[in-house]
């Protein structure tokens, strides 16, 4: 129990290692000497989660106990993370539900009548009623939906308010109701270092006008990495905005962290080190491979999307955002931080079926790019696991598939923009305004369940740092046409990919495989 993360060096006796590849996973033999980053063992979850929440609300960091902040006649807005967290989705009951229920108990006891619940979806798609219900629980849903339980609308000019401007000239514009509340209670689940803290309100409830100050190519190229807030220009911007907000509205934040149990026990091998697989694990791997390959595409997607994670909760902290977040980050690091010495010539990542933007949806090629070159590449502290000019090898089949309702502007971005240029800076300059202001996208974002028009461009910026850093990007097992539209090369096997990588990094490259699941944050020394 509780072994720390470590770096495996592949030797003769190392069995084939598990690699995720979208809605599948395979075993792969890595060359001798390959270093493999394994995160710490999944931490034990808190047994009495309800008690831990109560404890956090009654003994907050840098704030009065929540009951002391509640009084009759006040305007209370409870804001919660949207469906992009955690990944995969959490097995019911959702942590947000458990926190919100306790907050509401206290609000009810204090006689607060004016309560609004808001999903902090920023430019993400609106959550459906069913998704909201699953997140906040049936009791909350029935009491508040639809009148007082809503998605944030970043394009509803009437319900946005400019709170101020940072000293860097960044406009802070957020949801009017939240801004004009006597108290915001923000309910968060943190999966990786990038979430929570200043990001919660300043980003989750913001408008495009406000978001563009940190969601841009320049900021992302200077966020190294965006999972390490002290080194992230993006998070510096969040912090400045949060400081402006703090002068206007009181935020009581409740942050929770999850452990590494991201797959259900039927596929328990996902969370185990391969040489420790029992015969039962091996049999379930075989059965999984076979069933997964046999299942029709639609059914396979449903099986994956419905595999809800039996997360344990590793910590709940409440209070003033700035004082709560260090505790949250410490918990994330306890679960994910793994030290590794030095960079490699080649980094290998297996990409899973899920990213923040395809929950109950389809992982389209743009999302694959942002997942690989954005999220996974940036799971580091200090420096990337690959050296400057090295090669990134990613596993994903990358089918040319889009969800027509959720990702309409993605399709146009893929067809009309990426066919012309792949340069993030050029894209930002030439196309961002068009995508951000296209009335059709805006209409679909507001009334349907579409991501905002500008979102695919943000996804592309998300990978800007990696695009600049890597000398070559090779996708193993990807559809050739799709990958080449994105500007990447494809290989059918790891062997071929390594052969191709030689052109860039020479004949005897060092290799690091960033093993997942579970997620590891590489601390590169």
């Amino acid at each position, binding site marked *: 129990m509780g072994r720390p993360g470590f770096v495996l*060096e592949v030797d003769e006796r190392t069995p084939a290692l598990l690699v995720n590849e979208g809605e599948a996973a395979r075993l792969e033999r890595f060359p001798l000497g390959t270093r493999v980053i394994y995160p710490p063992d999944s931490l034990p979850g808190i047994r009495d989660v309800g008690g831990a929440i109560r404890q956090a609300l009654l003994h907050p960091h840098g704030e009065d106990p929540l009951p002391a902040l509640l009084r009759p006649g006040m305007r209370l807005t409870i804001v919660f993370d949207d469906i992009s967290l955690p990944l995969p989705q959490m097995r019911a009951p959702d942590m947000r539900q458990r926190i919100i229920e306790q907050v509401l108990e206290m609000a009810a006891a204090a006689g607060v009548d004016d309560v609004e619940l808001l999903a902090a979806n920023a430019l993400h798609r609106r959550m459906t009623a069913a998704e909201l219900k699953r997140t906040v629980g049936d009791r909350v849903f029935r009491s508040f939906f639809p009148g007082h339980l809503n998605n944030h609308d970043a394009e509803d000019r009437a319900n946005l308010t400019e709170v101020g401007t940072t000293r860097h000239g960044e406009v802070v514009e957020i949801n009017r109701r939240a801004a004009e509340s006597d108290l915001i209670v923000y309910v968060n689940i943190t999966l990786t270092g990038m979430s929570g803290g200043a990001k919660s309100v300043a980003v989750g409830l913001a408008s495009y006008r406000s978001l563009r100050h940190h969601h841009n190519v320049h900021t992302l190229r200077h966020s190294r990495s965006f999972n390490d807030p002290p080194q992230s220009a993006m998070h510096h911007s969040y912090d400045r905005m949060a400081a402006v907000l703090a002068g206007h509205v009181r935020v009581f934040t409740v942050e929770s962290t999850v452990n590494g149990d991201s797959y259900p026990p039927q596929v328990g091998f996902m969370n185990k080190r391969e040489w*420790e697989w029992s015969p039962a694990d091996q049999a379930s791997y075989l059965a999984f*491979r076979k069933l997964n390959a046999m299942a029709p595409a639609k059914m396979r997607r449903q099986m994956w999307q419905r595999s809800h994670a039996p997360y344990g909760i590793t910590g709940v902290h409440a209070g003033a955002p700035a004082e709560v977040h260090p505790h949250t980050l410490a918990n994330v690091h306890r679960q994910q931080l793994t030290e590794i010495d030095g960079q490699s010539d080649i980094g290998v990542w297996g990409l899973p079926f899920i990213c923040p933007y395809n929950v109950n949806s389809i992982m389209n090629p743009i999302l694959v790019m942002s997942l690989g070159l954005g999220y996974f590449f940036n799971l580091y502290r200090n420096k990337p696991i690959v050296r400057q000019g090295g090669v990134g090898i990613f596993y994903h089949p990358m089918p040319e598939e889009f969800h027509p309702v959720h990702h309409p502007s993605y399709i146009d971005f893929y067809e009309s923009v990426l066919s012309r240029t792949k340069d993030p800076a050029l894209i930002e300059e030439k196309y961002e305004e068009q995508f951000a202001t296209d009335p059709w996208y805006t209409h679909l974002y507001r009334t349907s369940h579409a991501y905002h028009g500008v979102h695919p461009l943000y996804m592309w910026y998300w990978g800007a740092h990696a695009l600049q850093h890597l000398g070559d990007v090779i996708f193993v097992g990807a559809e050739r046409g799709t990958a080449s539209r994105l500007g990447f090369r494809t290989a059918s096997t790891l062997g071929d990919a390594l052969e191709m990588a030689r052109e860039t990094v020479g004949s005897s490259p060092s290799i690091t495989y960033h093993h997942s699941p579970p997620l590891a944050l590489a601390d590169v020394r």
Partner: protein
Amino acid sequence: MRRPGKARAGVAESLRLLAQGRDLRGRATVPRSAQEWEEEPERGRFPTAWARTPVAGAVRYGLQRGLLKPTAWSVCAPDVRGLERLEGLRGPVVFVANHASHLDTPLILGSLPPRFARRIAVGAAADYFFDTPWRAVLTALAINGFPVERKGSGRLRSLAPQLVAERWSLLLFPEGTRSEDGWMKRVRAGSAHLCCGFGIPAVPIAVRGSYAAMPRGRGWPVPGRPRVSVRYGDPLYPEAGENAWDFNSRLSTAVARLWNEEDIGWYAALREPRDAAVARPAGPPAAGSWRRSWEAGRPLPKSRP
């Protein structure tokens, strides 16, 4: 239809990949760099419930009476005494015996009256009998063994209380392991706890001569059909308010008396004044170890003195 991954590997390919770096039982050697982080594998409890089903019970009874008992009775000459003391006794009962040889279990199971032999489970060392699947299956099927942790790690909750609750009698060897020199070791209080907890009787049993017939390290009894004796004592009932320690000392005294009966006869053993020494036939004290096993290994006289 699109399939993830172009080169869709079949089951054969997956098996080939799985087999690499693993032995035939599917176990992988820990990579060198991971050895620092190797974990004592958590032993799962081998499932034994199937062995207590009626069908398995019937198979087992057939095995015991058709194979095990005839074999044991043909390779040695058992001398069974005291069965009359079990008259009128109803299960569940905990049989408590000293343990010196693998012969002990077949001798006791073979000599028990059928009403007990048909519904008895034997505590067997988890780290030996339930270490590999094939041995675990044989143990569970042939003697209705259930795993008992003897290292005291306590990771596994014992099955014994559940079995008693299901009205199974138990055969336990409270020394925890076979004697190394033929003499008795300290009797642990586990069985006494069980009896006190459920208010059920314990039957002391002493097996003599099995060490001489087949000590540790031998896979088959010595030739010449050595005599072994199995003595059953009077059932002991925990008294109201009696604690497990007191009951345990009564129990171990009873086993020791049975042990001594072989040497000095029933009445003399009963009259033996040195209770403390009698409580545990520990053999010649403080002597060189060779003398201890030497004495213990002395075959029983062919007939009872």
